[in-house]
């Protein structure tokens, strides 16, 4: 590590003060802090600072995303193989998946970093580490068939409108990755919904496929029978061998990441637990009082939990420390309402088969209000003049 330190120390003078490359100081700083812990200390008592700064924090989220990313790549390749009638083995699936997924991730990172560096240079703030997570979360919410220029537009929108216009990381009211996805979703509905989830390997007629949530039963069949007919039995949904956005399909991998985030206490368990509780409660209510046996109303809580992107969203998106509420009570309510709105949008709104994105964005807007109400309530409980 010594030689690395020497390189940084030597080149620092070019990047600071009146150096030739002073404009790129943000970039220099960002690279340096990847390797070295920044030496900032608090200027007042107790002069201590936790080693876990924003960069380490975000790195932990990245680690938790590794299983879903790897499985996403594999599943994309595997699906693509099935679509063209070839049964691919593990390595081949992985290679084919990389062919589709890696460019999407690369474009997202390169374009997003370009805007980050531009804003960091003009506004003279540091390049925010939060982008490392945004840049990976956004591709994971997209179908593998999305055109790359739409990825570039989406991440630009997410970084600029979702974050930088509010003043950068820490001031954004919405989750930037979800803002980017919402932009692509409403701008290019053709690329984001319908039967577009399986890329085909240049075969003449590739198979197209709907996601489990788009399934509706025909005739008198029940929704559960229809789902297992389509190959969406609960077991498949759990392991994730179903079509869907790149990162959302495997419940197992998401739970691995969730476990890691909870053990390291990066994600707040109240949001996740509240969300799952809200989803199960709402799904049961709809199950008991719903009429139509062929629609998702009658699917029951487990299917609602395992299908679609709810677990992905509540684990990685809703727990975003900036756009989620900051008080514990508000976190429970926040999570619960995300679960509630997700199911409500799924079953009650025919225009959207999936409601997670909209539910989280909606509750992001209400997060400050929830915090405000909790604080107000606590203040009102104080005994005056004590």
């Amino acid at each position: 590590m010594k030689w690395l330190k020497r390189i940084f120390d030597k080149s620092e003078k070019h990047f600071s003060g009146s150096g030739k490359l002073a404009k790129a100081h943000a970039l220099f700083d960002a690279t340096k802090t990847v390797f070295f812990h920044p030496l900032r200390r608090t200027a007042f008592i107790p002069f201590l600072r936790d080693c876990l700064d924003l960069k380490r924090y975000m790195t932990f989220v990245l680690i938790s995303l590794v299983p879903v990313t790897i499985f996403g790549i594999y599943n994309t390749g595997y699906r693509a193989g099935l679509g063209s009638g070839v049964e691919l083995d593990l390595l081949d699936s992985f290679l084919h998946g990389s062919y589709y997924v890696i460019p999407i991730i690369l474009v997202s990172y390169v374009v997003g970093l370009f805007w980050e560096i531009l804003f960091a240079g003009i506004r003279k703030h540091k390049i925010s580490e939060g982008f490392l997570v945004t840049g990976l979360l956004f591709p994971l919410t997209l179908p593998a068939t999305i055109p790359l220029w739409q990825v570039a537009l989406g991440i630009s929108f997410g970084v600029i409108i979702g974050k930088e216009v509010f003043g950068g990381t820490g001031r954004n009211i919405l989750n930037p990755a979800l803002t980017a996805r919402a932009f692509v979703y409403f701008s290019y509905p053709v690329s984001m919904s319908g039967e577009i989830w399986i890329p085909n390997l240049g075969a003449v007629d590739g198979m197209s496929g709907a996601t489990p949530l788009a399934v509706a039963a025909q005739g008198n069949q029940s929704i559960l029978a229809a789902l297992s007919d389509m190959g969406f039995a609960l077991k498949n949904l759990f392991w994730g061998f179903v079509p869907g956005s790149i990162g959302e399909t495997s419940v197992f991998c998401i739970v691995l990441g969730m476990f890691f985030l909870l053990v390291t206490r990066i994600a707040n368990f109240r949001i996740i637990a509240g969300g799952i509780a809200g989803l199960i409660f709402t799904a049961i209510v709809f199950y008991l009082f719903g009429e139509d046996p062929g629609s998702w109303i009658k699917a029951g809580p487990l299917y609602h939990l395992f299908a679609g992107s709810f677990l992905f969203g509540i684990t990685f998106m809703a727990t975003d420390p900036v756009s989620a509420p900051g008080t514990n009570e508000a976190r429970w309510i926040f999570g619960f309402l995300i679960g509630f709105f997700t199911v409500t949008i799924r079953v009650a709104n025919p225009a959207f088969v999936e409601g997670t994105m909209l539910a989280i964005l909606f509750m992001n807007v209400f997060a400050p209000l929830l915090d405000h109400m909790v604080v107000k309530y606590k203040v009102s409980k104080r005994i005056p003049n004590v």
Partner: protein
Amino acid sequence: MLAEKDHFKEILIKGIWKENPVAYQVLGICSALAVTVKMSTAIVMGIALTIVTAFSSLIISSMRKHIPSNIRIIVELAVIASLVIVTDQILKAFLYDISKQLSIFVGLIITNCIVLGRAESFALANPPADSFVDGVANGIGYSLILVCVAFIRELLGSGKILGFNVIPGFLVDMGYQNMGLMVLAPGAFFIIGLLVWLKNNLPGVSHEEN
């Protein structure tokens, strides 16, 4: 005479650019969201509003010394409403198709904050000629933003300019898609917001410098 000219010029610049009704005063946003999906409607709307604002300012300004201040809003509304009805009838007679697309928004010019705002804040305190110029300036300022927004929305949202296809065929073959968001009202919100951002950051117009 020269001073007179400079005076008018100043009012014009103020209304069109410096204190642009949409981008600076943030007035008339509702119609700016509604009629900017296509350029043709935006242009007609801009012209209609410019005429109404200019003449209502002129008329109200020439009556300003005779209007009792406690019923001035009623008088102003009567003047504006008559002008709006006349404009609406003219549009229906000569530009029926566009009038149908603008639907209720021509009638709603009366509630457009710009018209009443100029009447209240300028025409009641200034001579008729100045007020007329001010009305024209604000109308043009409004139209300017409207046409800009409509241009961007029509180009990105439906790939057309003034109804003509401008997206070359080879782009569509390569996978170009129109941006659906631009046809929805939120698209106009984003465009107006970005335009305001741009305007405030152009050199020489930032209101922080004033």
